[in-house]
């Protein structure tokens, strides 16, 4: 629907229906991925709600409106998909997620299960293991001196710890990153990235489907813990593999991008790196601040379940609303010096992990991995120098990060 028509319609309620500007921005194009910040600013400054005619969606780029949408899941639902595809009109490319693509009350039950599988108490149990694996990885990289911080660190560390924590079999793990990449590409519009990802998806989907079954998961891992909730009757035996799938979809690529973002920040902001070395207890907040600044997950959609007024603008029922998490995380209305990486910033409230009932259920695992790596770096490494061309990744509709970051470490 044309938003100009909406605002001009004669039956608009008094005080509602402020004109919604139409912008000629494609947030899923290579040019946008290259440097999204001027477009983020344009969208933030244009109005509380904008309309992107390239994909016929509404957009919110200011913190207040992104926060409002995330906190009103009744009006801005997830069950019609959190990508551009509207599950009420199109068949989803895979069976919908029971947690991400669900609304209360169905969501409440599945969310409770994954919250317990990944609870703070569980993190205490795995903490030492994650910390020692990070130390071992940083020792190995120091011995090499020069390496790629994306493949050899940001990818290698989560791959060395997360699949084992899940309880995955040794065979087939090479499908994990392509599967996650597929999932996050599929939230985007039907562009080449999405089409190609889905065309090539069959072997990755087959692997994940098989790996989510109870007998394929090692006892004691997160996967087996999910299945144990089926025995208690909290979920059914049919639901359990799909909830394991959620952990495989969202648990690896996101942390890879998050750790990559943090290392990239520390390499670019030497004063902050020095501060972290002086006080390694800042590691966890340094990771959190990198998630705010770089927002590895850039966007998610919601679908309106009714006509709604948002930021003084009227949106009809059944409309897709695109939330620019990365733009909200740099909104000067909310953040002082938003483009600055400040590892002591009070960063609570950022939307890099989302917010509200769908806020990342694995955020504690992500933070533990980030804290573990940054703590090991702070204790063992003296300098991080970028010693080659930095290459941005252009292969994902939703995830933002680097493809290559050649660095040299010197020993502390």
């Amino acid at each position, binding site marked *: 629907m044309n938003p100009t028509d909406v605002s001009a319609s004669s039956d608009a309620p008094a005080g509602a229906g402020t004109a919604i500007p139409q912008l000629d921005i494609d947030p899923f194009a290579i040019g946008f991925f290259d440097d999204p910040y001027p477009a983020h600013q344009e969208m933030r400054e244009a109005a509380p709600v904008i309309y992107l005619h390239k994909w016929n969606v509404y957009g919110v780029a200011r913190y207040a409106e992104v926060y409002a949408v995330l906190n009103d899941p009744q009006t801005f639902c997830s069950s019609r998909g959190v990508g551009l595809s509207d599950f009420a009109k199109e068949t989803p490319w895979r069976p919908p997620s029971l947690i991400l693509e669900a609304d209360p009350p169905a969501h409440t039950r599945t969310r*409770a299960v994954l*919250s*317990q599988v990944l*609870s*703070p*108490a*569980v*993190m*205490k149990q795995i903490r030492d293991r994650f910390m020692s694996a990070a130390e071992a990885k940083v020792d190995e990289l120091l011995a090499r001196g020069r390496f790629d911080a994306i493949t050899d660190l940001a990818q290698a560390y989560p791959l060395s710890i997360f699949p084992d924590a899940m309880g995955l079999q040794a065979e087939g793990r090479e499908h994990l990153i392509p599967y996650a990449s597929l999932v996050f590409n599929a939230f985007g519009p039907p562009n080449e990235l999405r089409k190609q990802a889905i065309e090539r998806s069959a072997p990755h989907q087959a692997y994940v489907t098989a790996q989510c079954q109870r007998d394929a998961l090692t006892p004691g891992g997160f996967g087996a813990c999910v299945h144990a909730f089926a025995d208690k009757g909290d979920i059914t035996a049919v639901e359990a593999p799909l909830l394991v799938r959620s952990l495989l979809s969202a648990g690896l690529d996101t942390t890879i991008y998050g750790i990559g973002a943090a290392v990239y920040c520390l390499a670019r902001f030497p004063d902050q790196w020095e501060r972290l070395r002086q006080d390694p207890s800042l590691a*966890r907040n340094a990771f*959190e601040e990198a998630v705010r600044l770089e927002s590895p997950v850039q966007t998610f959609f919601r679908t309106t379940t009714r006509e709604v007024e948002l930021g003084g603008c009227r949106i009809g029922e059944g409309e897709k609303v695109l939330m620019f998490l990365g733009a909200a995380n740099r909104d000067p209305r909310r953040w002082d010096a938003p483009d600055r990486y400040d590892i002591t910033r*009070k960063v*609570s*409230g*950022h939307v890099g*992990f989302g*917010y*509200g*009932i769908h*806020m990342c*259920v694995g*955020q*504690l695992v992500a*933070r533990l991995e980030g*804290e573990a790596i940054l703590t090991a770096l702070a204790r063992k490494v003296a300098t991080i120098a970028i010693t080659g061309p930095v290459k941005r990744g252009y292969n994902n509709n939703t995830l933002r990060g680097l493809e290559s970051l050649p660095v040299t470490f010197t020993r502390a």
Partner: protein
Amino acid sequence: MTTITFIHPDNRSESVDAEDDTSVMLAALTHGVDGIVAECGGNAVCATCHVYIHEAWAGKLDPVSDDEDTLLDGTASERLPNSRLSCQIKITPALDGLVVRLPERQS
């Protein structure tokens, strides 16, 4: 406005005027009280807004929900009988004068 007092581990105390219908967690963040991290921003995920409720107030708060109970098992500082997550304590005029003690660590 409802006055909430935070006592730091070094016994320093800070009182803030909290807005009703927010939370004790948000009152600390809004007024710059250190010691409440609130990584998850109040969405009952993280257990980094842990506080100990002063004895005088122990029976005057809403009871701990099952979700909060699970999270409290994962606090960085020891869980005590008076442990609560401050994001789950809603500010109401009835809480005027509430005193909470901050733990040594949140993560």
